[in-house]
């Protein structure tokens, strides 16, 4: 069990590195993102895939336990909605933050949309879906 300070430090360092890296890769640039999604440039895709390969190897060396995850009913429809929204707005939950930080003020609208979507999901899930969706970040 890590201390509160260690967890805070982890979040700050990771946030800084993630924001810095995402912005420098070009995920906030709609043209670059579209070039990845339409296979005109594989640079950003390789960045992501390369990161996954490094993480898999590092976790294997560090013996980080593999956690099972139940494929619940919300995974596929949720991922479809997310993929659609990502292609339309050019933002995943982290990207619009770096877009605003880079001066793209309309990305505030994307953030507002994400806010509404997240609150809507929790509300509809409580009322209708009753899914135990798990959480990627604990």
């Amino acid at each position, binding site marked *: 069990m*890590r201390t509160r300070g260690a*967890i*805070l430090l*982890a*979040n700050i*360092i*990771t*946030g800084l590195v*993630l924001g*810095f*890296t995402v*912005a*420098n*890769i*070009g995920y906030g*640039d*709609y*043209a670059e993102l*579209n070039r990845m*999604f*339409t296979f005109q440039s*594989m*640079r*950003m895709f390789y960045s*992501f895939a*390369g990161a996954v390969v*490094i993480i898999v190897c590092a976790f294997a060396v*560090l013996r*980080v*336990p593999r*956690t*099972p*995850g*139940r*494929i*619940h009913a919300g995974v*596929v429809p*949720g*991922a*479809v909605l*997310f*993929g*659609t929204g990502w292609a339309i707005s050019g933002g995943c939950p*982290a990207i619009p933050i770096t*877009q605003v930080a*880079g*001066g*793209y003020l309309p990305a505030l609208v994307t953030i507002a*949309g994400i*806010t509404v979507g*997240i609150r*809507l999901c929790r509300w509809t899930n*409580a009322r209708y*879906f009753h899914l*135990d*969706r*798990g*959480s*990627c*970040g604990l």
Partner: protein
Amino acid sequence: MTTYWPWWAGAAGLALATINYTLISDRSFGVSSAWDRVLHWRSERRLERMEEEFTDEQALTEALAAATAEHFGTAAGTSTVPPVPSGQPRPLGTETEPAASGRPAATSLRPAPLVTQAALLVSIFLGGFIAAVTSGRFHLRYDMGPGFKNLVTADPITMTALLFVGGVLVGFGTRLAGGCNSGHGLNGCGRLRPVSIVATAVFFSTAVAVSFLLWKVI
């Protein structure tokens, strides 16, 4: 003309962010999860206070289950605390399987404190700002750049509507799927979790299909 990092530098940066988090905190991170918790800070704070009140693990687990059932509308009496939630924090190098003891250790279910999740979002902003300034890309603007203008629309109203609708889909979709690029894509795929591999494959392929359909075909 600005240049972005080569793919290997980007891969190293993303991997560094993920591995660093796991090494320091014994947890995995997710940006959509951080958003979710920060946006629902009242209920999250209530859960945190409840956690602090209980020292007995069984009592804590039951109280969390009851509170979650109340909040999510899950049927009373059913366990809403998953035995092994995705991204579950566990000590590094420990092969102990909580399920083997009949129930998970309550301490292993505790999420990162709420304030640290807010710190993650603020730090992403600062990291992005530093990158924009140091690379010379920082420029205050009221559009989404030439890419969006050429590929999607130059009309400010249509742009605003598309960004909002896209944002709603991203927010709703990531929480319904239980994660986004960071949670499922980096942390989950890094741990070879089947649910994360499925989610990542689906959202990437959907984004590809939608990009081709919207901006190439239609």
